[in-house]
């Protein structure tokens, strides 16, 4: 298997099938924490870590526990709880390890449990059938790179969006459009722009 597979997986998850603008995953944090660019960065960092580790864990759980026992139908509950446990562990670890890091990221971690992007990417990795295409072992690498790409895409979009919103704050917007409505339209225009990237991979 050539390394381009990973590159393609990352680029396609980041730009072409962007989690927020194309797959509509994680719209809540996209609108919720994008008022300031600092909070956008903090959230993206937390999402990136949990998304990559979470998709590895759910992948392993699916192919080494659920599938051998033929109980794939419980994957929904299993995935959400595994991700939730992961978030708890990470939060606890950060609390103990670094005051600074906790101050920076601590607030975003509990939010991640209800961030559908994480669970959505975990589910997508299974549904895409990487394991069938590349084998379970290499499939995991591809799944991990696509999760990493998705997180990069999330970070890119949420950061760009937050900088636009900072300017929108100062802009003279009709009162009915102030806040979320105009932001959604801006997001729609961003989605149009991303539509232009379709077909590069």
């Amino acid at each position: 298997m050539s390394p381009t597979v990973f590159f393609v997986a990352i680029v396609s998850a980041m730009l072409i099938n962007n989690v927020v603008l194309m797959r509509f995953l994680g719209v809540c944090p996209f609108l919720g924490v994008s008022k300031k660019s600092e909070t956008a960065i903090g959230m993206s960092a937390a999402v990136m870590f949990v998304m990559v580790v979470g998709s590895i864990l759910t992948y392993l759980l699916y192919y080494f526990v659920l599938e051998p026992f033929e109980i794939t139908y419980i994957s929904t509950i299993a995935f959400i709880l595994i991700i939730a446990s992961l978030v708890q562990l990470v939060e606890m670890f950060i609390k103990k390890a670094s005051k600074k890091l906790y101050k920076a990221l601590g607030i975003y971690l509990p939010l991640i449990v209800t961030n559908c992007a994480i669970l959505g990417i975990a589910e997508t990795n299974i549904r895409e059938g990487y394991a069938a295409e590349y084998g379970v072992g290499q499939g995991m690498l591809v799944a991990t790179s696509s999760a990493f790409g998705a997180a990069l895409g999330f970070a890119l979009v949420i950061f760009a969006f937050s900088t636009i919103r900072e300017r929108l704050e100062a802009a003279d917007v009709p009162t009915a459009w102030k806040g979320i409505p105009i932001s959604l339209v801006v997001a729609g225009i961003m989605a149009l722009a991303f539509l232009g990237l379709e077909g590069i991979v």
Partner: protein
Amino acid sequence: MAKKKKDAGKLSVFTKGLIQQNPIFVFLLGLCPALAVTSSLETGVGMGILVIFVLTASNIVVSLFKNFIPEEIKIPAYIVIIATFVTIVDLGTEAISPPLYDSLGIFIPLIVANCLIMGRATSFASQNNVGRSALDGLGMSLGFGLAMALIGATREFLATGELAYGVYLPLGFEGSIIGLEAAPFSMEVFVGPAGGFIVIGVWLAIFNAIGQHRQHRRKIARDRWIEKKKQQAAERKRRKAMEGGSA
């Protein structure tokens, strides 16, 4: 008298979720599915039905066990309850309506991450009795479903000039509500991602404008009322003074 007041309270528990506290248009909860599965009226309604089931059921169970679950593990217990119902709904949809299951895709398992459900469990069901929680869940999820239907209908109509039914939901009959023959004027962009964002944004602005207009009118009415009261008071004063003067 007291009974009547309580009944009115029950009704408002149900109706407040429909418009006043609409989860999508007022609280902006559950925007992921509101964007992703509303490319047509039917998928929006289908998602609404699933959420009605999950939210009502989880509200009932949470309020049933509210005294039994220790405060310390409240949140994880709720997550488990919700995840269980979502798994059940997932399997049920696949059995009852495979086309709907295919078209909603990963957004059925993602109901579990819908902030609306967790939010209602912690802020309402854990503090109210079973009946009120069930009504609250039903009302809130109906509000969600109505909003989904509105967005779905808007997008489908703009994109195709028609509103179809019977394609995804097992209704037993198929057809189109409006057939405008509007194909040459259809705007395909509205079934796509960009259209979703824009349609929700425009609806939000419309509701905001209506809200502001109402507030404005209420303010004018109140101002008038105060003005009237002032005039009345002045009138009375004058009359009193006149009476005093005449006396």
